[in-house]
């Protein structure tokens, strides 16, 4: 099974990540976020950016994590293609590796305005697999 995917939302798009832990699912959801914007396979993980978030629960932490990445992409004009996430209680420490946007190499679709609380879920299925998902506004 693919470890990330998109799901449909009327005007926008949903990002979904799977993993053996919430942290892994968050990393895959971030990969799905990049895939909204471009083909993640074209992004070279040259530069690391550190991100830290804190939220009252795992679901809100997912929104914060994705919004932190959206902020870093927007202000650094970067795309990210590799992620490492550590979650301890209500806090998240993450690394995103990527490079500057290059129109010649990155097939760009659309920029993301923000991660939303719509269709927001972080949960473990009976088989033990974690899922992290929400809709992003484009």
């Amino acid at each position, binding site marked *: 099974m693919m470890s990330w995917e998109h799901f449909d939302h009327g005007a926008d798009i949903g990002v979904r990540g799977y993993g053996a832990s919430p942290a892994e699912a968050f990393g895959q959801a971030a990969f799905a976020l990049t895939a909204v914007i471009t083909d993640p396979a074209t992004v070279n993980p040259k530069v690391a950016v550190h991100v830290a978030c804190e939220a009252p629960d795992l679901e809100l932490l997912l*929104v914060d994590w994705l919004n932190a990445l959206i902020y870093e992409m927007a202000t650094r004009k970067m795309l990210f293609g590799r992620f490492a996430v550590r979650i301890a209680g209500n806090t998240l420490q993450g690394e995103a590796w990527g490079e500057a946007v290059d*129109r010649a190499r990155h097939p760009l*679709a659309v920029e993301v305005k923000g991660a939303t*609380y719509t269709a927001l879920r972080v949960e473990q299925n009976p088989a033990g697999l974690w899922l992290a998902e929400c809709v992003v506004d484009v």
Partner: protein
Amino acid sequence: MDTARLIRRDEFTWEISPRGKMRVPAILYADEALIRAMDEKVYEQAANVATLPGIVRAAYAMPDAHWGYGFPIGGVAAFDPAAGGVVSAGGVGFDISCGVRTLHTGLQRPDIEAIKPVLAEALYACIPCGVGSTGSIRLNAREMSAMLTDGARWAVRRGYGTAEDLERIEEGGRMPEAQPDEVSDQAKQRQRDEMGTLGSGNHYLEVQHVARVFEPAIAAAYGLQEGDVVISIHCGSRGLGHQIGTDFMKKMLASAERYGIHLPDRELACAPIESPVGQSYLGAMRAGINCALANRQILTHLTREVFRDLLPDARLTLLYDVSHNTCKLEEHVVDGVPRRLFVHRKGATRAFGPGHPAVAPALRAAGQPVLIGGTMGTASYVLAGTAESEARSFGSACHGAGRAMSRHQATRQWQGRQVVDDLAAKGVLIRSPSLRGVAEEAPGAYKEVGAVVDAAHQAGLARKVARLEPLICIKG
């Protein structure tokens, strides 16, 4: 949507009667075909909005309503601060004051026919668009604050446009009572190099022609005749607005419990208008509106520069500038009593009728121009606000076609290159940094804008004045 769950009040008015925690009914305006095609989520979201504290009269959905975030897109709701009314960051949306402005050019279609490809290339070269694009303007802290306080008036002061432009922008180009200090440093940082950029997704700059006039008297008042070439710009408050939305969704979600607000959906995060969080958001959101007005003003300036070089006879004057995602303090008569209400319009256009004092003097007798953005392959429309819309929807109408399918479905159905070639064969030149973006925005991915506009017209929300068809589209 299942019509059996609705009470049909008249041919174009459908009601969800109050049930559960709903304080007021929800009213949907559309013809039967649009209602049947409408997402069930619109039902749920309109009913949820009707549960919020201080809501007045009803939660409304416009004919183009579709599944949004908390509020449906195409949603209108007014709140009374004296009755514990709320302001909602989700009810305004991420792209604060996203809107449309339309410019006259003084040209006729034959004037640009020969030069169309050159004009398309020049506009594409001069209008920053797409993911990661930047403008050439950099604002220091003081200028950022001035821009957020004064909106398009700041832009005109800096040489981007004329004083005449300002008369044709809602609020005279400056949303009063903006509080730049309530805008986070992150939001300002996101805007640092995004002034004068178009963005991506459904944002565009189009050169259009007036294909048909439906109401000659109003069209004349608006300065529109069949054959005229006009320009429409659709974009919003860029990164700054998006970050304000992100920041305040979080703050309002955290404070809702403290204020005793029950949220049926986290996305409806809101705060009492009279609370510190509510006031802080209003100050920041108004600054976001000013950012959008300044941004569209700068894009207008860039467009004028292109025309000045290529078509020196052109005179680019502003017809009007409307905003779609706002919350504004307005006076409305409810049950015969004038009340000051905070009206949220999420994917909806203000549509004040003839004689309304908020409409520019030159246009007042005709009513406010309502600019409806369509798709790059079909048409856009100019409508006029009506007196009836005051009682029907707090003076509001639809804002666009609304998507008929998701972006994924669209990319499965169309190739960007094919869309560009097909439209070129029909005389519409598309220039975009993103072929995938073009596929996602393919005309067929949207509802028929004509049906939405007809429903708005027949429901009395606005009158159909003119149909605009694209000739050139710069797509982000």
